């Protein structure tokens, strides 16, 4: 791994490049849309990563937090508040929802947590579908001044914030606690870790990010024909896929997974139509079965094998499958 | 009849057995002794197919056992009573015994086998309908042995029979096993920490240390051997002497 200052430099240059890109070169509408989608996926998959990847709680209710963020941002923005406040309100509303959903379900173990969150997210979808029977949209004046560039910058900011949050969490005591919860539950051991506390923190942070992601989406899309669409389980499943394919429980895994998923699905959708989703499904299964640390993990694993052969040493350790 | 020749066995990357050889003749009781972690149970698991053998081979008559799956080895006539009994707690005593008679040959003689097992272990007959998890420790061990016998084996492997049981129960069980050995010409391989018990039942014994066989011989002679007494019987022997 690179030393810290070099890594910071690389990240700084990347941020600068992304900041400058729309000013320096003309990016087409299609590409801008695609980039904003990548940002939203980075936010959501990083959100899933915090609770699912690092803490080991498979959350199938992400869509509820995302949808909640979308709705609240939409209405706060409509009330003529500035968009950045609206997005933050969206994030906070998701935290509140996570409190309501999470505090009961986090007491559930393993697969039952997954089932419980899934069921509650469906409850949210049904309730929202009953309340908003007609489409919701921003007033026409917002559509008149619509430009993708501010959406791009908002998405970029929140995406980098999500990565930064994850980075700082993993280096903190909280991150250690989360990983301890995951590993001790996997080993079915009882440890001194107050696992409930760490699970709650992880879920709240994760929900906040998902809500922000919803905010970006609400800013991007001015109207929603079917409000239930933003609560659809797709918004849970696709970020989960991005996180796992890229490598859940790693910092850059979800980023790579998101780019991979969004860009490839754009390319495949044009050439293969529906079939590209089948390919993603198969790829996902293969990753789960053979590369539990995703694309990122397999790269470092290959690197490790090469260095092992090179040095003629036998190192076992960090890249071995969990639990073995 | 059962011949283990120079086997090496690993748990993952960690070697557990080095060059182990042992033999069980027809109708013989053989004991494998040693302290905790010496590799006795590993030998058992290698015979019954739960562990893979990396080098050497295990033969039963003309059939090579290593590499066969566990259920196939049962079919050939080798049955194991696992350490810790491992009965199916949610099933009735009778169901446990029925599962023991899973092989085709055993199914045909099931009723017959059941009757003579009930004769040896009468508590099982009385509690046939009861959930196995509700039995006492001694009864669970009876059930584990009975279940293993249901497959009508030619060789019975018993892993740590005496563990956690009172001396009276152990006496009773060992008596039954010796009886079945005589009546049914059943060969028995015992793995035991209770060395005195095992040697008193067996005709021959092997001693293991750190995954290797370090000594073997006639059980009665071993029981008198002062070195073995000192190393393994320890205080127990002194008490006897005193």
């Amino acid at each position, binding site marked *: 791994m690179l030393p810290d200052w070099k890594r910071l430099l690389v990240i700084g240059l990347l941020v600068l490049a992304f900041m400058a890109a729309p000013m320096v070169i003309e990016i087409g509408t299609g590409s801008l849309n695609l980039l904003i989608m990548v940002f939203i996926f980075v936010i959501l998959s990083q959100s899933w990563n915090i609770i699912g990847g690092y803490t080991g709680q498979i959350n199938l209710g992400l869509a509820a937090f995302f949808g909640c963020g979308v709705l609240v941002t939409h209405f706060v923005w409509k009330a003529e508040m500035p968009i950045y406040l609206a997005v933050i309100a969206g994030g906070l509303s998701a935290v509140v929802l996570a409190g309501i959903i999470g505090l009961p379900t986090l007491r559930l173990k393993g697969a039952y947590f997954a089932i419980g969150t899934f069921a509650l997210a469906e409850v949210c979808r*049904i*309730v929202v579908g009953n309340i908003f029977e007609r489409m919701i949209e921003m007033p026409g004046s917002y559509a008149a001044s619509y430009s993708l560039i501010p959406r791009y910058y908002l998405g970029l900011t929140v995406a980098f914030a999500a990565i930064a949050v994850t980075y700082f969490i993993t280096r903190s005591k909280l991150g250690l606690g989360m990983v301890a919860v995951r590993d001790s539950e996997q080993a079915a051991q009882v440890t001194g870790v107050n696992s409930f506390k760490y699970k709650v923190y992880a879920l709240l942070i994760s929900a906040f990010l998902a809500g922000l992601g919803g905010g970006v989406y609400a800013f991007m899309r001015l109207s929603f024909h079917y409000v239930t669409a933003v609560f659809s389980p797709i918004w849970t499943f696709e970020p989960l896929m991005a996180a796992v394919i890229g490598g859940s429980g790693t910092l850059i895994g979800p980023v790579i997974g998101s780019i991979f998923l969004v860009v490839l699905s754009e390319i495949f959708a044009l050439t293969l139509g529906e079939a590209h989703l089948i390919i*993603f499904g*198969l790829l996902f*299964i293969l990753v789960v079965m053979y590369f539990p640390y995703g694309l990122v993990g397999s790269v470092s694993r290959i690197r490790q094998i090469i260095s092992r052969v090179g040095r003629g040493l036998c190192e076992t350790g960090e890249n071995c499958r969990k639990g073995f | 009849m059962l011949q283990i020749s120079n086997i090496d066995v690993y748990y993952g990357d960690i070697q557990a057995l080095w060059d182990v050889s042992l033999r069980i003749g027809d109708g013989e009781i053989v004991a494998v002794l040693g302290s905790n972690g010496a590799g006795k149970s590993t030998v058992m698991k290698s015979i019954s197919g*739960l562990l893979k053998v990396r080098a050497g081979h295990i033969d039963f008559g003309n059939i090579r056992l290593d590499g066969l799956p566990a259920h196939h080895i049962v*079919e050939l006539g080798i049955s194991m009573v696992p350490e810790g009994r*491992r009965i*199916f707690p949610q099933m009735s005593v009778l169901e446990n015994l029925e599962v*023991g008679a899973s092989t085709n040959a055993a199914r045909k003689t099931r009723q017959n086998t059941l009757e003579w097992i009930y004769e040896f272990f009468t508590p099982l007959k009385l509690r046939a309908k009861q959930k196995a998890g509700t039995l006492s420790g001694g009864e669970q061990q009876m059930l584990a042995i009975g279940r293993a016998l249901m497959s009508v084996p030619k060789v019975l492997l018993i892993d740590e029979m005496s563990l956690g049981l009172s001396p009276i129960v152990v006496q009773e069980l060992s008596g039954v096993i010796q009886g079945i050995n005589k009546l049914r010409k059943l060969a028995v391989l015992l793995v035991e920490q209770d060395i005195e018990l095992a040697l008193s039942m067996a005709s021959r014994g092997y001693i293991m240390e750190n995954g290797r066989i370090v000594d073997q011989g006639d059980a009665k002679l071993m029981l008198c051997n002062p070195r073995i007494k000192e190393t393994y019987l320890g205080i127990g022997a002194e008490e006897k002497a005193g």
Partner: protein
Amino acid sequence: MEFVLQTIANGLLAGALYGLVALGLGLLMGVMKFLNIAHGTFIILGGYLSFWLFNLWGIDPFLSIPLVMIAMFLIGLVFYRLALSPLLKLPDVGMRIDTSMLITFGLIWVLDNAMTMLWTPNVRTILTSYTGETFRFFGARFSFTGLCGVGIAVLVGLALYSVLSRTYFGKHLRAATQDAEAASLCGVNVQRVYLISTGIAIALAGVAGAVIVSSYSISASGGIGWLLIAFVVMVLAGEGNINAIIPAGLVYGLLEAGSVLIFGVPYRQAIALLVFVLVLMFKPQGLFAKRE
């Protein structure tokens, strides 16, 4: 009054189907500890097979159930070999459940989209000569197809119960679940028992699909909804308590009927799901757990 009776009748008809929907999931999860998220998708697949047999060859959807079962059984065998059997190597049951959940989650993607390509995203149903026929009991209407569904659910539930409790195969399966290693030491071929059980579980999903397509309708992406119902019923019955699944389905159907009566149709599923989460939290062993 008539409305109340009719709602309860609908609840019973739906409830029997809910039990049927959950049987396959309960067998895989409760007995074998594989969590098959793609269960609903397999149900839809079974529904399409039945739809196909009816549309291409005009075979009655209730008479074609054995054919659907055989086809789904074979699909189940392939499913086990490719996706589930590698998981037996995992060191503990928790990992087996989690990993099978993720793998079958990917499988949803594959099957959903394959079915959309094969059969278009349109909603499909089977219209026979007797579709829409009803009977009256105690002032409530029962549809003929719905009653057939109840009959099949009860029949299949009883059949599964007697296979598990009476046959050698059932005993082997239960033994393997409690302690796979000890079962193999008894001469049980654990891999084969699991293989066949997975086949049965998927065949059960097929039956449910065939009943659904004849009395309701299916669409390629409708699997998730049925999965959720199957989850709920399984949890209400208590994990591993196969015998209680059909009764638990009826309870869930009546629960829905009750919430229709009190809160109205739009919140039917939402209320039932909330009750489900409450059960999950306060009585995680299920409503039908035996006291021991």
